[in-house]
């Protein structure tokens, strides 16, 4: 598929020198330190980093739920002052409103802004269809499967045609089969729209499969460790992706960087890092056998 010209796509987010502290006095701790990066417009940027490194804090800053302690964040050159429908977050575990049906959840944005008209109603119908939930539009979230909930949440964000979609480990907690289905599903959606997407994950396969651009983060206090451009052509096929040397090479580069980060934080006393190191050493052994 030919890459569309991204020059006119909005949603370029620039972070410069962003630092975020939590706590006060003795317990004051930097979670993000002097972090500078650009989320390029019209690309699917995937941020990957050790769990608990501060990725979710970064998302809260970009979404405008919190303010950085220092540094600036801009979207298309304008500073971010608070939450807005130009940057919508799809949260970790589902944040669908449990008291609203699929239909009501998806139409939340237009109703909130009093923008309900035939156009928005048709768009809602179109999106419900597109995420395959037309038979479930009168169901409440807890009557939907995990995969359906995530799809519903994607539609709830998409109806607002945000300039940037921010996804915070959206497929975490789904079983392996559903997760892979969701990757292909989400990749399709992205390939159709080519909006600016910012996807955060701890899953390396997910990152390689989805990303145009990989942003690998260091441990806490987090900043960018490395950026890798992933130019594997789209549409990608999950079944054949990891037969390609390119994909595997990127995967091992990610692992190497994450391993270095884990070693650093292990020396700093992190128990979570110990698990990663053990897993990484096992994987290294099984690869050589």
């Amino acid at each position: 598929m030919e890459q569309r010209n991204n020059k006119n796509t909005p949603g370029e987010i620039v972070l410069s020198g962003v630092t975020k502290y939590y706590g006060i006095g003795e317990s004051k701790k930097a979670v993000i330190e002097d972090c500078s990066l650009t989320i390029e417009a019209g690309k699917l940027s995937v941020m990957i980093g050790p769990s608990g490194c501060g990725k979710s804090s970064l998302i809260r800053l970009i979404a405008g739920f919190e303010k950085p302690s220092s540094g600036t964040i801009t979207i298309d050159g304008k500073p971010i002052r608070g939450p807005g429908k130009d940057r919508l977050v799809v949260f970790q575990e589902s944040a669908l409103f449990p008291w609203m049906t699929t239909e009501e959840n998806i139409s939340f944005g237009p109703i909130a802004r009093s923008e309900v008209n035939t156009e928005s109603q048709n768009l809602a119908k179109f999106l419900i269809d597109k995420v395959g939930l037309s038979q479930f539009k009168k169901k409440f979230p807890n009557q939907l499967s995990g995969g359906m909930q995530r799809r519903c949440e994607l539609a709830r964000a998409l109806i607002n045609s945000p300039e940037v979609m921010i996804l915070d480990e959206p497929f975490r907690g789904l079983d392996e089969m559903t997760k892979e289905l969701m990757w292909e599903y989400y990749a399709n959606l992205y390939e159709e729209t080519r909006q600016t997407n910012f996807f955060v994950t701890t899953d390396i396969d997910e990152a390689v499969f989805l990303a145009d651009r990989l942003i690998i983060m260091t441990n806490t206090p987090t900043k960018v460790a490395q950026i890798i451009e992933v130019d594997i052509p789209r549409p990608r096929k999950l079944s054949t992706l990891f037969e390609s040397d390119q994909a595997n090479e990127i995967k091992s580069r990610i692992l190497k960087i994450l391993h270095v980060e884990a070693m650093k934080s292990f020396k700093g006393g992190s128990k979570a890092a110990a698990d990663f190191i053990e897993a990484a050493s096992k994987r290294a052994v099984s690869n050589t056998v």
Partner: protein
Amino acid sequence: MFRPIQKFLFNRSSSRGLIAIIIFLLFWEVCSRSGVWFGIPVPWIGKVPAPTAVVHAWIPMLSDSGYWTSWLLSIKRVYIGFIFAMVIGIPFGLLLAINRTAYGLIFPTFEVFRPIPPLAWVPVAIIFWPTNEMSIAFVTFLGAFYTIVINVLGGAQAIDQRFFQAARSMGSSQGDVFKRIVFPAVVPSIAVGASVGMGITWNVVIAAEMISGGGSDGGGKGGGLGFFIWDSYLNNSYDLIVVGMISIGIAGYLSSGLIRIIGDHFTKWTRR
């Protein structure tokens, strides 16, 4: 037509319940009829009128207008107190939850008043309110009020922050957040508060009627079910005491059932 009854009778747990009730009634009957076993008086239950005697005393009551007036009076007091507690308690709890200033100003005082049992208010209520009827309603109100406020407050404070973040991102105004997030999220807590509150209201109204002598319409058998029991005690009609007790049990059960049906109707989304 008999299907549901049949189903109920042969369902394992309900047939167990029925058997237990029958055994209990038999045990009660035997104990109160014999009174003394092997020269030893049977503890408490031996002095209570037997179930057959209770039924015997109950039947004439069914056509006694005073008895039904007692029902109506107690129900009226319960619902007046309860409805006031809901109407005042729900907004009050929400206010405490969403407004920090209000919380800071009011909550400490509220917490000092909350442990005071509603019945401790009876004397003050009688002095303070112009009619006995209003005193009883006030005490009943207190019984449900604290429970409802605490449940609403707790429910509102437990709302997932991400709901607010999501709503604000999508352009919700404060009023919209309140209407479509806070209020629906609190409804299950309101339902819990209401059903607990309803139980407390019945406890309170009975005791208040005993203490206050049956309210302004008092006297005879028209002073509410609590007064009905007290009056029967004063008249040494022990079987009527039990009639009154069972009547309260039935009235309370029906009230809770009503609250549960209404609550279920508004919390459909919590069921799978």
